[in-house]
């Protein structure tokens, strides 16, 4: 009979091995799913994970890895701070949208002024927008004890409606012949989040993601606030006796993750996406939850997990065009990954012992 034995401490080996095992298991399960869809599973998996990196057109796809990975890493790094302390910001998608809207609003307000300060102001506005949107669940939780999971989620749907209203109304391109959607920032140099080195996919969002990862690493490892976050997550009561203010943690964690999600949205709208449009958001805020867990809520892990998840997006697109694999299959594949990871995580905290059944 199988028996679970709690480890005195989480296994260091399994902490890092579990995500790898989860990825391998998900590939097997995903392969089975692709086979059920009538595709050659090995070819499908190879297309998703090999083609973007080493395939014939890899020179085109490799930069995309940074473009898709940056928003995921930015958002997930912020989410992980809260998740560690048991503060669940599930509404990053909404903060991402609002950051894009506030960032774009500043850019559009300055149009067509060509000045060096337009883009920095947009960055500040984007971060501020995401921060403000996250402050709603944060303040409601601190003030009234309202569940931040539900409030931040409800705000995603509100933000989506606001996005549609903006794309159809105030932010609509006056020269757009009546089509919904704002002016395109790719045609407005002072506000364009362009590639820093042409052909690398390296835009300012990537720089921001790298800075965020480094800061989070230092914060969690070296700073008293990082210690308080970890302590609150592991032993909330002990943290309170140690003088940690739960309210302050809620405000800081939700605020930080909101600001980072807002930044991600702003860099996306002014760069790869280019404009405020109804279908601007593509679910990065939700996929980032998977990235955060897959990266073990650790900044370095998140950077790696973000790149892996970006790979599934790009490989998925290739598989869509070359194998006719439905886009939804990739979405399901990503969901599967989180599932398997949570199951495999058992090995981190528990030892499995084989034991003959005893008479009770």
């Amino acid at each position, binding site marked *: 009979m199988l028996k679970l034995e709690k480890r005195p401490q989480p296994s260091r080996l399994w902490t890092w091995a579990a995500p790898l095992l989860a990825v391998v298991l998900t590939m097997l399960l995903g392969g089975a799913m692709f086979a059920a869809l009538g595709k050659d599973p090995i070819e499908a998996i190879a297309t998703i994970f090999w083609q973007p990196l080493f395939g014939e057109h890899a020179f085109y796809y490799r930069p995309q890895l940074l473009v898709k990975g940056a928003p995921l890493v930015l958002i997930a790094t912020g989410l992980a701070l809260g998740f560690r302390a048991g503060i669940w910001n599930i509404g990053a998608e909404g903060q991402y949208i609002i950051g894009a809207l506030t960032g774009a609003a500043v850019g559009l307000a300055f149009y067509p002024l060509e000045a060096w300060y337009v883009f920095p102001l947009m960055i500040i506005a984007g971060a501020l927008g995401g921060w403000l949107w996250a402050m709603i669940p944060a303040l409601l939780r601190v003030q009234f004890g309202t569940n931040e999971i539900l409030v931040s989620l409800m705000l995603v749907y509100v933000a989506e409606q606001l996005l549609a209203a903006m794309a159809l109304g105030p932010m609509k391109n006056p020269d757009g012949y009546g089509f919904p959607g704002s002016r395109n920032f790719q045609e407005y140099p002072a506000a364009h989040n362009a590639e820093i080195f042409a052909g690398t996919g390296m835009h300012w969002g990537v720089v921001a993601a790298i800075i965020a990862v480094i800061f989070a690493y230092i914060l969690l490892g070296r700073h008293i606030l990082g210690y308080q976050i970890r302590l609150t997550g592991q032993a909330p009561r002990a943290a309170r006796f140690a003088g940690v203010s739960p309210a302050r943690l809620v405000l800081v964690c939700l605020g930080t993750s909101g600001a980072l999600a807002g930044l991600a949205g702003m860099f996306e709208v002014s760069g790869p996406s280019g404009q405020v449009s109804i279908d601007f958001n593509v679910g990065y805020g939700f996929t980032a939850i998977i990235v955060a867990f897959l990266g073990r809520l650790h900044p370095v892990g998140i950077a790696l997990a973000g790149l892996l998840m970006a790979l599934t997006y790009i490989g998925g697109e290739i598989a869509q065009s070359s194998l006719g694999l439905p886009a939804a299959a990739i979405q399901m594949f990503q*969901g599967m990954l989180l599932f398997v990871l949570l199951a495999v995580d058992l090995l981190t905290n528990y030892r499995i012992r084989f034991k003959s059944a005893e008479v009770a």
Partner: protein
Amino acid sequence: MDLGSINPVLLLASLMVAATPILIAALGELVVERAGVLNLGVEGMMITGAICGFAAAVGTGSPVLGFIAAAAGGAGLSLLFAFLTQFALANQVASGLALTLFGLGMSALLGQGYQGIKPPPTDKLDIPLLADIPALGPILFNHDIMVYFGLALCAAVWAMLKYSRAGLILRAVGENHDAAHALGYKVVRVRVLAIMFGGACAGLGGAYISLIRVPQWTEGMTAGAGWIALALVVFASWKAGRVLLGAWLFGGVTVLQLNLQAAGSALPVEYLSMSPYLITILVLVIMSADKSRAPASLGRIFRASQ
């Protein structure tokens, strides 16, 4: 805007319809939470039920079989959550989110090829004589069977929790799983059954949206109904009767804003569409002050002591 075009009788009648999916899903989640488990995957199970029910109803031509398939689909998906939280001892919040992300992906995959199709219609159940009463008739007695099912389910869940032995065990497991375990109740078994019940209810609620309320299939069509159902449970302070009140409140807001849209309100449609979510937040704020009624073991991992 022409407010006169809004017919109060029709408004109340459609309120009952709008309330039904979140009512059924919330009742399921209520039972799950009373057993001490927080399953945040309602949205994922609802959308899965919506597509399972839709596919089965279109395939067989029978809405009844559709609803049965939806319940089975929701319950089946919830088993994954049960496995993660009850056997792999995973964090319930993370597992619930995983269930929603997985369910959204799976439903999108299963739903390919069902876009733009009409499901077989579900007949309205005209209750003779009663349905002919002016005003009251159309509001209360001229609905499809699922509306009455929702009301009956509400009464059944209330009675089960309050009066039955099964309800007593369920509540004991939810209030103090260690004590329940010491008394010899099978905590994990009770919770797995509760989770499956919750999944079946969420599936039914989802299918109600795709088969009757809308009726068609579009990706992500539950649009947060699962999360509103979760909020309803908090609103109701974990009491079945108040879930019904809450569902009517949200059904009312939804229907009212749709009517205002149709009446040509000066506000753009998008702002009106926000209102159900904003009301949910408002109600959550008002109700959150008192958390004393939440089951004491809610969200805690149970592991049998040796």
